[in-house]
């Protein structure tokens, strides 16, 4: 008998029944197809953008408002200058064609060990916790989110939603379905493993900056 059979038999024996009948299975499948709406955190803020920024900044992240996608390179260059980062970045093609200042080296591939700066387009921002949701794909390599020491994320205001659940509704409507990887990111990487004292930049980005677009 395979281990799979052993485990399933043991489960059913403990539950005191055989495999579920057709009616019971249909009921459970219906629960997946139309998930119950559970209790959520109250987010009654009229201004979701302000709530997002306030929550994101509460965990050592920073935010800035920009007016158009064309402003992204200037904002990134200013940040790089402020922190002494070399003019070189990995940028997801999801951001489209951007015109970078002279001297900037831009790569669209996976982030290698030497990469210090990543620029990505967020799929959603969640006002409840001030988190962003990233989806993986050819236009949004996942290494951009974790390898660089500084991560800049562009978040269009129309993609800021109230709760996690609003992301699921949008995700289920998406043609490509669930991506290979999804990341909720709520601030810079941190650790409390040395004497329970928080240090930033444990393994992922030490610095996270969100450019709120619109």
């Amino acid at each position, binding site marked *: 008998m395979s281990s799979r059979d052993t485990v399933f038999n043991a489960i059913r024996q403990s539950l005191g029944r055989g495999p579920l009948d057709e009616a019971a299975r249909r009921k459970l499948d219906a629960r997946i197809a139309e998930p119950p709406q559970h209790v*959520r955190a109250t987010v009654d803020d009229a201004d979701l953008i302000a709530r997002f920024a306030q929550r994101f900044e509460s965990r050592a992240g920073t935010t800035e408002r920009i007016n158009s996608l064309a402003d992204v390179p200037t904002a990134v260059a200013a940040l790089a200058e402020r922190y002494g980062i070399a003019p070189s970045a990995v940028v997801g093609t999801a951001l489209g064609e951007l015109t970078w200042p002279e001297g900037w080296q831009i790569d669209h591939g996976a982030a290698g060990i030497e990469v210090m700066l990543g620029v990505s387009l967020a799929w959603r921002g969640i006002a409840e916790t001030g988190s962003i949701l990233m989806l993986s794909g050819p236009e949004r390599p996942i290494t951009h989110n974790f390898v660089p020491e500084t991560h800049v994320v562009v978040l269009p205001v129309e993609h800021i939603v109230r709760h996690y659940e609003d992301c699921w509704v949008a995700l289920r409507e998406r043609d490509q379905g669930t991506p290979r990887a999804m990341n909720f990111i709520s601030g810079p990487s941190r650790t409390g493993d040395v004497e329970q004292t928080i240090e930033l930049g444990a393994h992922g980005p030490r610095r996270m900056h969100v450019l709120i677009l619109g």
Partner: protein
Amino acid sequence: MEFRSPEFKTRAVHALHDVNLQKALSNTKAGFVVKRAQAAEEMPEFEALRDTARDIKDHVLNNLDHYLEKYEAAVTAAGGHVHYAADAEDARRIILGICKKANAKRITKGKSMVSEEMGLNEALIADGYEVVETDLGEYIIQLADEPPSHIIAPAIHKTKDQVADLFAAAHNKPRKTDRAALVAEAREVLREKYFSAEVGITGGNFLVAETGSSVIVTNEGNGDLTQTLAKVHIVTSGIERVIPTLDDLSVFLRILARSATGQETESYTTFSTGPRREGDVDGPEEYHVVLLDNGRSKMLGSRFQDMLRCIRCGACMNHCPVYGSIGGHAYGWVYPGPMGSVLTPLIKGMDGTYDLPNACTLNGRCKSVCPVRIPLPDLLREVRHQQYRKNMTPKRQKQALKLWRYVAERPKLYHFAERIGVRILASMANGKGKLRSLPFDPGWTGARDLPAPTGRTFLELWQAKRGDQ
């Protein structure tokens, strides 16, 4: 992982005299306990979320076979593989097979308590693989060659100076004492490992049946790098960790971090669904999930089923006065504290685990903070009951209980004995109101005084008061 629960008593005594450990444990109270209380206070829906989380888990457990089938089908559709392991040995065999096929030399690991339960590191190292724990806490204790002492803060017992010594010895670099410099050094050393590992192993906090995704929750981003950069990603999780939908998951995301560290959310919640897809420039080429039973299916339908709701947040141990005094190592196996004192006897057997549930004071703090409302004191009492039925309770304790029961069932005798006892204690205390040492149990008064009665029993006082009215 070595099984040292039989030595609980000597290890507990050792822990009580460990100055560094005591200092570290006192930090826990100020850290986790206060922060959790604040987080719960700030969220009006917190108690309702705990109820919902309990109900979702109960629903899943009663239909576990169906949700596992759904989850497995979704993983397979996304190009991944689900393996079932009946026990730890089975799991090691499966994972060693995957690593061999991948021609692996170096294996990076994100934090996984299930992999500790499998005894995975020892097996991989014995087969010649280099295994690198990447969670900073896990990395520290790997260098110290010690098991974790807390399920979410594995190196909680280590001081900064001890970490500095370990790093200086392992990294061949000048000894650093600044906390930020230590974290930066680990970051630099572990980066090389992420990029050169062939296999990355992580845990799985949740498995979503709807999408076939495994979900990990981290603050450091180490699990994310581990699973993104290696050619092969292996998820290790328990069969009970499946939940139906993303909407159900949202409930758990709202209570996990708050219960564990008191955070509103961790830095990263990462979903993995199969291997890299067409056009992807990064991500693993293979994706495996190894689901461990190891006694879990036996807990279903039993008096211990509630234990399977556990989401491994660590709140029960953070609030446990016994854990707070002796730390995690005294418990002698993977899971310490209240949840460990239930799980260890159930997974490893009753032999050698006698002391674990009996160290509990049944104060109930664990139950009051458990995000999925596991009645831990009741389960611990049930383990004791089973020990009693297996005739494991010490003879003297049994005799004492029998004697107490005999007297307690005879109210007149009980009150008579009480009146005598109270008067003896009062005269021994000599009007000071406390006893510095007990004649038959000097250990009890070793570090505290016994408050002494004043000379009359409660019942006598009550009757006198009623007589006055």
